[in-house]
């Protein structure tokens, strides 16, 4: 039975694509991402190792323990995020509830599946790192075949404690998730904090990477005092330190076994107990009798039609899983992605293309503005489906007593507002991180907002034409084309003006004017087009 339950959990965790090609592409994407992570960690560690030795003889070993400990936490966090779906999935629980399977068996299978998830994540990250360490240290430093066997087994050992910790924090995470879920502003705030943290982290890693690539000294990034403190702290990285001690056959075998086994057992037992309690409470809460549930009655508060339309659009975009990867998560990630790309390109140009920049002074500004516009417009293009996103419910739009004009404007406001917010956040992150000039900031802001408005209006026209009941047309590709072409035209214009040595001020005024003209041309027939096309929409 346990195997069947594990198989069920595995099947549940898979995302099923509509075609084999998509499935293959998804797997290729995954392999590439993991490959990149493994490459980066192996590259950084192998480059870092001799430099760390310069600080102290145990420097590289301490850093290995630090990285392994951090990876243990990363693996635990990533498993916790996935474990919520394993433990608290309503549909799954409602099916399981009616099957003659003991609750203990269900919980055990879920905990075991969580453990296997942990092992897999940990294995991908730690095995290559341990192998690199082994190869770098060599036989002369006491690294034997036993160490490589240990390296393969390490994820299995370390995952006991991370699984235990996952099970302990899972109910808390689930509570926090349910608390944040209906609070979009809080979600955005947390997402923004996460993105800014990622930017800082990326900046640090990029600096480290560039230092290592240029074979420079690490003095600006790591100090001798830090290495000393780290050495003293490593023994508290339970159970990584103890496990590594065992793997390398160091002296305190019994103590290491006691600490690592003890901590793992405590975490696992406590975690299992908490998970059992939490799962049982979840079942009680979700599937108790209707009589007790009817007590929890909350009043429905009506809003004015405009507010309710905006709320509906918010639900259609932010609760739709189809938008997660194409819009909502990218919206939060946009500042980070823009920072990563612009930071890297700026670094490349400023270090290697000084001569080029001497002749084309505005090139960096133009490039930065174009990239910011491209990020914004490509992300925004996934919401250029104002009416298509209604799917079957498009008939509701047509029979409710609200004018087509009001409905369309409300449809445009939500994605426009969020895309604009993301654009402003991106610009602030870039400006605070000193990646863009003040001029680029303001031009990107003005052009970006107008570009988003043009795309919103054009998106509605394209969508209405696509949905026309009299003509079948597959023109949704136009949204993507527009979102790419408009920023590229901006770049082309600036480059052309630069080449023609037009003054900087005039150059940007013309660009902004062109955006204004585009918007006016698009908005003028808006009312007429909406009123004519609305009733002709296919249902």
């Amino acid at each position, binding site marked *: 039975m346990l195997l069947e339950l594990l198989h069920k959990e595995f099947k549940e965790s898979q995302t099923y694509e509509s075609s084999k090609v998509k499935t293959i592409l998804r797997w290729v994407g995954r392999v590439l991402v993991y490959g990149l992570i493994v490459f980066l960690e192996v590259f950084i560690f192998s480059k870092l190792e001799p430099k760390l030795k310069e600080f102290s003889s145990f420097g590289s070993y301490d850093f290995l323990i630090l990285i392994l400990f951090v990876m243990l936490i990363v693996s635990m966090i990533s498993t916790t995020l996935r474990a919520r779906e394993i433990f608290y999935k309503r549909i799954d629980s409602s099916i399981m509830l009616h099957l003659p399977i003991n609750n203990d068996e269900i919980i055990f299978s879920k905990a075991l599946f969580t453990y296997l998830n942990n092992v897999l994540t940990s294995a991908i990250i730690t095995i290559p790192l341990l192998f690199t360490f082994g190869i770098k240290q060599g036989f002369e430093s006491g690294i034997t075949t036993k160490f490589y066997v240990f390296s393969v087994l390490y994820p299995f050992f370390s995952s006991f404690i991370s699984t235990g910790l996952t099970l302990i924090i899972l109910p808390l995470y689930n509570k926090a998730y349910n608390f944040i879920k209906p609070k979009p502003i809080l979600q955005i705030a947390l997402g923004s904090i996460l993105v800014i943290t990622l930017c800082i982290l990326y900046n640090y890693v990029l600096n480290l990477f560039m230092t290592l690539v240029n074979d420079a000294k690490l003095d600006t990034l790591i100090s001798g005092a830090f290495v000393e403190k780290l050495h003293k702290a490593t023994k508290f990285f339970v159970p990584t330190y103890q496990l590594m001690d065992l793997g390398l056959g160091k002296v305190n075998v019994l103590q290491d076994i006691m600490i690592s086994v003890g901590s793992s057992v405590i975490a696992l037992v406590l975690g299992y107990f908490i998970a059992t309690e939490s799962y049982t409470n979840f079942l009680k809460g979700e599937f108790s009798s209707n009589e007790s*549930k009817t007590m929890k009655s909350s009043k*429905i508060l*009506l809003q*004015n039609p405009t507010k*309710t339309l905006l709320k*509906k659009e918010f639900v259609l975009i932010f609760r739709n899983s189809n938008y997660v990867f194409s819009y909502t998560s990218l919206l939060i990630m946009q500042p980070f992605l823009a920072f990563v790309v612009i930071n890297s390109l700026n670094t490349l140009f400023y270090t290697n293309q000084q001569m080029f920049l001497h002749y084309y002074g505005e090139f960096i500004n133009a490039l930065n503005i174009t990239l910011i516009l491209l990020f914004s417009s490509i992300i925004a293009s996934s919401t250029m489906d104002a009416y298509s996103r209604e799917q079957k419910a498009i*008939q509701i739009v047509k029979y*409710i*007593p609200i004018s087509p004009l009001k409905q369309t404007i409300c449809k445009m406001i939500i994605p426009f507002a969020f895309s604009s917010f993301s654009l402003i956040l991106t610009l602030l992150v870039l400006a605070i991180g000193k990646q863009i000039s003040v001029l680029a900031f303001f031009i990107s802001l003005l052009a970006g907002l107008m570009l988003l408005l043009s795309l919103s209006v054009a998106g509605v026209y394209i969508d209405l034409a696509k949905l026309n009941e009299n003509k079948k047309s597959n023109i949704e590709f136009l949204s993507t084309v527009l979102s790419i072409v408009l920023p590229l035209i901006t770049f082309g214009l600036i480059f052309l003006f630069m080449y023609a040595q037009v003054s900087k001020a005039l150059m940007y005024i013309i660009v902004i004017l062109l955006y204004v003209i585009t918007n006016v041309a698009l908005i003028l027939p808006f009312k007429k087009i909406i009123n004519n096309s609305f*009733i002709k929409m296919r249902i």
Partner: protein
Amino acid sequence: MANDSSLLKEKASKVLIIDDEEINREILANIIKDECECLFAKDGDEGLAILKKEAEDIDLVLLDLIMPKMDGIAFLKFKKENPEISEIPVIVLTSDKEKEVECLKLGAMDFIKKPFESSEVILARIMRIIEHYRANHITKKLDEIALEIDDVYKSYGKKEVLKGISLYVKKGEIYGFVGKNGVGKSTTIDAIVGLKDFNSGDIKIFGQSIKDDPVATKKLFGYVPSEPTAYELMTGKEFLEFIGSSYGMIQSSFDANYDFLKRKFDLPEADLNRKISEYSHGMKQKVCLMASLIHNPKLWVLDEPTVGLDIMVYEVLLRMLRDYAKAGNTIFITSHNIELVSAICDKVAIVNEGKIAVELDFKKEPYKRKDLKRVFFKVYGEGVENL
């Protein structure tokens, strides 16, 4: 039986002449022939039968007082007691001054002296009363009409789907709109509720045209689509809140309707707090039914509401339809379920090839309820035994 008339279309006036003497009938017919269409009866009995049958179309009765079987006085007494025909005006043809008071008491509007005076005077008297009656009658009827479809045409490219559909539904009526697949039922409903445009004609709901003022007209009806359609990402409550807010409802009115409908459709609060995507087909249909009635519409438009319903929800719907109509509201329903339509409807139209082929009025001819299935198959040229 085919219904190709609209209430507001100008029709020729119809006059029923009841007189045992053929010469009188001919004289009167000749006087009014340019303005009116004539029907004839030889005595009160025959006249009463014609009047009952053609009550909707007859605008005036010219009645002789002295006739062999049922005389004029007896005719007026019967007419007065029968509410369906009591309002149709009568001009009495008489030479007896003494009976005039009695005739007036029994509802006669005017008198034409025998032997007949000048034809111009007679025609003027007749037309004055007809015009007065028609003006009052049409105003009254318009006030009584919940839905009027007037000569609606709709085509998709070259394919004509609706070829001049005309009908009207009176307030408080349950009107069934039946037909086999692809004959224009759903297109008609889509046109009524503003889901689809139509090429020509007009649709009025409580006198408001869906073409002229769609927003105001849409507030007047509740609509249940054939496939239960709601925002799957919302909870049941959120969807009802969306509908209530969209219709600009007052909070207290919404609260009262919400509690009432929740009880009627037996929807627990816990279920309404769940996402609609997790609902069964029946649950979704219940929420859609609730949404269609939450704003308290006076006209309920239902497109195939029984498809895929389990017996429990079906019974709830049936009860709801009856209660809703009992409260004086109007229902326009399409369904494949002939048993349901024949059981609950007051009028049924069978549509074929974009036109109304037959309209049955069960209030006038209740015995035809049982006949609906046979008539249905007859319209499509198939015998019941073949199915």
